């Protein structure tokens, strides 16, 4: 037992007791404790195991700078993995378990891995498991790796609340500098938001306990808070600014308690003041990872904030002037403190499962705790996120904020202003824009960096078990850039993202190569500054909110009719109806539509109006097909191409008047086609003479198709006499406009009827009833897919791919004859477009009695090494034909009708015969029957 709770001091409430357990043993703590501080107060030293060698570890830091004490924590029914013990506030009833350790951190059965460290150096896994194939070894290696275990049941209501907001001035950090800046700015009338990641304001003030402006820290902090709020400033505690993004967007994560998803503030700030402070960096010496070795500032933080004296015989090794103050503070709390100068002679930690003694040169001294510091490192992460530059300070042996990013300033320890009074003064000046005093510092440091070739195992990255020898090895193998060093050794890739390891790592590389530290440089600083849960990135965009679909006006009717619903091009649509198994239901519907009549909700079909004096020339340019010659009242099928000549969409165009067209593009392309039309309208045409209205949402479209379709229309007393195929007429239904279009996607006589969605229900009921009276009924999208495939009608994106041009589908006319310019025209006459081995759309017939081909199966050449000549794009059992049908894109397919080809799929081959794409009613007799 080394650590203990002292009688008084700290921000904890000694009157209240909190019960908790760690690795199965029960302990108590107080409100204001973290898991780590409570365990230290109970004399526990080993709080975790390292990632690779399963070395025992205690906390190095007291806040986000600790890479060692990671725990799975359960509270009631909620369990979270990988909670840093140093930042997890203690709650009554918590049960914590060290990650990466079994049965406990103190007795980990994989601890033996440490004996093999000689063979487990940097790159061990890459090199050892390369032959024959890494994937053979990966599963078992992955099983050994990883930290906490996920509780698969999840946590009820663990959903992040995401709020967009703005502020004039964001102050990051509620320590002395941040509070001073926020107060000065708020009192000067600025709209201030101050964020502090601890639950309480005050930052590092509790470590030393020195008075500010003559007041003890707690009183001074309370006064600042009051003044800031009185001046209209806002304060968020328990809130971490974890990323700075473009144009002043700062991401704030607000803690809302254990197992509650933090709130995300997307704060757009005009100006930000970075007062994030600084951390101690580790000293690099042999066995510097033993439990009991921690940062000087961590020792002071546990003392000042949590009332925990971390050891009784404390060795203190610091190369800065802050060591004196630390020693005084610890002695005053009852410890004996012995100081060591790490620059004078090599240090070594001695002990098996924790520090027992310190060797300094030739001498050995007993100690239960070693507080170490190799100097302060300003927290410049957010500065770098924002694009600020860093500069190296020889005086402070640290990277400091250099050229500022727009709208950001740094104050206090984050700016290298380590002395309290200087920091307070600087913060006030920066906040109000008054001139800064001359920079000065009482802080003194005798630089001390890792010494290559040193004895023993000297840890650089505690969690990932990267030692000085690994850095030396990386250098020998020429991974000398810090970015390569990081990825090769995983240095800085632990959950603290290099907060403890990066400086030592790059200094080690600098020393190995004999280069100055600033020349070696740092790795890139990226958000998030601290680990944040994935919930922050999705918020309520989960479940039905993750990828919400467009919904049909008639969905209630489809549900009532027993429709199975599926996603088709961003819409939730009926796939088939009724209780029969899927295959049977689809088959029955397809057959019904061929034999009597099918009714389809086709509402998602595009209804994009193009109007204006230049409308005709415009649609003629947009479409591959000639539209100019289309007469009012008539409809034409057309393809839309990309400028690369690839088929982008197919649909029909109706001409309402000389200066008025309606484009009915495919259901999934409405937004895309509208955007494409707007783009060509405004960039390349006169936008004052063409206007594009996407009216798709206003209309519901119901299609009646089949040999009985005309009789259904007559039964409803709808005009059908004057509507030949590929034309439309306007009528009135229930007092509102009705447009009847004769177009067919099934090959049978079809009527597409469009009414405002408010009238859809009445029309649907009337049509359905009339159809059912003739042995027909509703059909889903799946049956429609079968019907159109029987006719060889394409679905763009299914029967075409990113190379398919119109002539590959047999539409050769406009390519050869259209005189006017159109989108993609020139691309249809390149060497590629003229190649003889282009993949062309054909049909495939299977052998008598054989099953349908798998969609996606390849058509292959024969011989030892078959090569793909194309693939099956659509394949179905055709109920009306009583045999399977298929469409395929095959190299030179149009000239190969009748050829027998080999089909390959999942190592099995079959044969099929190339046919025309259309398998049913090739003469088109049914179209106008």
């Amino acid at each position, binding site marked *: 037992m080394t650590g203990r709770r002292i009688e008084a001091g700290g921000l904890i409430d000694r009157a209240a007791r909190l019960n908790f357990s760690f690795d199965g043993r029960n302990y108590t703590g107080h409100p204001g404790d973290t898991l780590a501080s409570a365990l230290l107060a109970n004399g526990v030293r080993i709080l975790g195991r390292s990632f690779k060698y399963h070395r025992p570890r205690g906390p190095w830091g007291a806040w986000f700078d600790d890479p060692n004490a990671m725990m799975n924590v359960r509270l009631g029914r909620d369990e979270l993995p990988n909670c840093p013990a140093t930042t997890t506030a203690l709650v009554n009833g918590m049960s914590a378990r060290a990650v990466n350790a079994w049965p406990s951190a103190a007795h980990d059965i994989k601890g033996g891995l440490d004996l093999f460290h000689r063979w487990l150096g940097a790159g061990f896994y890459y090199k050892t498991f390369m032959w024959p194939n890494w994937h053979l070894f990966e599963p078992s290696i992955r099983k050994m790796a990883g930290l906490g275990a996920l509780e698969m049941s999840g946590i009820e209501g663990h959903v992040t609340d995401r709020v967009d907001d703005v502020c004039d001035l964001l102050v990051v950090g509620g320590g002395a500098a941040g509070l001073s800046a926020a107060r000065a700015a708020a009192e000067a009338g600025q709209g201030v938001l101050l964020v502090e990641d601890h639950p309480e304001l005050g930052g590092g003030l509790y470590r030393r306990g020195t008075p500010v402006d003559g007041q003890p820290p707690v009183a001074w902090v309370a006064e600042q808070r009051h003044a800031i709020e009185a001046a209209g400033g806002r304060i968020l505690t328990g809130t971490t600014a974890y990323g700075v993004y473009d144009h002043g967007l700062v991401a704030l994560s607000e803690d809302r308690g254990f197992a509650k998803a933090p*709130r995300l503030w997307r704060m757009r700030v005009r100006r930000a003041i970075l007062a994030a402070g600084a951390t101690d960096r580790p000293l690099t010496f042999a066995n510097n990872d033993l439990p009991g070795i921690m940062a000087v500032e961590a020792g002071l933080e546990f003392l000042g904030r949590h009332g925990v004296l971390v050891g009784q015989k404390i060795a203190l090794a610091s190369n800065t002037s802050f060591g004196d103050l630390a020693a005084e503070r610890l002695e005053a709390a009852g410890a004996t403190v012995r100081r060591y100068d790490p620059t004078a002679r090599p240090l070594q930690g001695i002990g098996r499962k924790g520090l027992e003694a310190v060797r300094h040169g030739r001498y050995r001294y007993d100690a239960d705790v070693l507080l170490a510091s190799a100097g302060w490192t300003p927290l410049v992460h957010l500065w770098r996120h924002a694009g600020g530059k860093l500069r190296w300070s020889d005086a402070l042996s640290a990277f400091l904020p250099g050229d500022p990013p727009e709208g950001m300033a740094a104050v206090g320890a984050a700016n290298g202003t380590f002395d309290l009074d200087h920091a307070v003064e600087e913060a006030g000046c920066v906040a109000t824009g008054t001139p800064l005093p001359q920079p000065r510092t009482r802080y003194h440091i005798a630089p001390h960096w890792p010494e290559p070739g040193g004895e023993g195992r000297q840890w650089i990255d505690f969690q990932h078990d990267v030692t000085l020898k690994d850095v030396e090895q990386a250098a020998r193998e020429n991974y000398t850039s810090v970015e390569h060093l990081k990825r090769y050794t995983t240095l800085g890739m632990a959950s603290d993202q290099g907060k403890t390891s990066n400086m030592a790592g790059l200094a080690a590389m600098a020393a190995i190569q004999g280069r100055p530290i600033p020349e070696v440089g740092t790795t890139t600083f990226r958000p998030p500054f601290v680990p944040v849960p994935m919930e922050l990135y999705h918020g309520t965009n989960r479940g039905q909110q993750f990828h919400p679909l467009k919904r049909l006006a008639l969905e209630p009717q489809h549900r009532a009719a027993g*429709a199975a619903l599926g996603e088709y091009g961003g819409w939730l649509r009926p796939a088939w109806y009724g209780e029969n198994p899927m295959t049977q239901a689809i088959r029955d519907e397809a057959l019904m539509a061929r034999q009597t009549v099918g009714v389809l909700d086709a509402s998602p079909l595009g209804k994009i109006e193009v109007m204006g004096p230049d409308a005709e020339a415009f649609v003629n340019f947009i479409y591959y097909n000639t539209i100019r010659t289309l007469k009012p009242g008539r409809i034409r099928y057309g393809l839309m191409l990309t400028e690369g000549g690839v088929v982008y969409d197919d649909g029909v165009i109706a001409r309402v008047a000389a200066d008025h067209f309606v484009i009915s593009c495919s259901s999934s392309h409405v937004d895309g086609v509208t955007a494409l039309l707007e783009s060509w309208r405004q960039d390349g045409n006169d936008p004052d003479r063409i206007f594009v209205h996407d009216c798709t*949402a*206003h209309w519901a479209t119901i299609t009646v198709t089949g040999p009985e379709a005309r009789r259904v229309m007559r039964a409803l007393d709808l005009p059908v006499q004057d509507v030949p195929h590929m034309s439309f007429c306007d009528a009135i239904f229930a007092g509102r406009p009705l447009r009847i279009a004769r177009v067919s996607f099934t090959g049978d006589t079809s009527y597409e009827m469009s009414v405002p969605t408010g009238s859809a229900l009445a029309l649907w009921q009337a049509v359905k009833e009339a159809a059912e009276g003739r042995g027909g009924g509703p059909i889903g999208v799946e049956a429609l897919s079968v019907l159109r495939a029987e006719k060889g009608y394409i679905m763009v994106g299914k029967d075409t791919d990113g190379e398919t041009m119109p002539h590959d589908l047999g539409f050769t006319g406009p390519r050869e004859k259209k005189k006017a310019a159109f989108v993609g025209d020139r691309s249809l006459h390149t060497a590629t477009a003229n190649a003889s081995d282009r993949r062309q759309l054909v049909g495939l017939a299977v052998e008598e009695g054989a099953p349908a081909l798998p969609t996606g199966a390849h058509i292959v050449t024969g011989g030892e090494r078959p090569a793909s000549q194309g693939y099956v794009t659509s394949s179905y059992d055709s109920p009306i034909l009583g045999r399977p049908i298929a469409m395929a894109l095959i190299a030179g397919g149009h000239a190969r009708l009748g050829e027998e080809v080999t089909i390959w799929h999942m190592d099995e081959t079959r044969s099929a015969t190339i046919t025309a794409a259309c398998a049913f009613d090739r003469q088109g007799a049914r179209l106008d029957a």
Partner: protein
Amino acid sequence: MRDDRLKWDAPASDPKVLAQDGLHVTRVRPTRLTLISGVQARRASALPLIGWPDQVTSEQFALCLRRDRILEVGGPDRLPGWDAEAGLAISEMTDGYAMFHLDGDRTLGLLKRGGVARPDQPSPSVVRLMFGMDVLLYCRGASGFGLCVPGPRAETLRSALRAHLSQHGAEI
């Protein structure tokens, strides 16, 4: 293909989307919506032209959607098509939008969950991206807002608002 009907809640038909203290969301049915585009579209309506954060004070107004496009709400019956004389393209859109009224002092808090819409950042248009979709957002009185989405997105908006309220309602 699979049957996803259980994955998606059946669309709600109750016009009362939410009714809580300080937050009421109701679906309303405008008598007529007319989409009007043209060089002079912003001067084409006799109704007050509404940008952000202009206040709508009656049931008849024209929302400014673009440089050359407005949406008349409760306006006169117009012949759809190209009006060559006025140089206007006209389409009826009465059934194309779902219109919601948001009322109560917590409304602004709810809107902050959907995106940035600050009264101190004026804009000539009322179109924006909110709750992940294109919406028309305008002000109705001191704490009221109108929110229109394309009809097929009505359910998306309803469920988005309900998700925010059910997860975080107490804190909005």
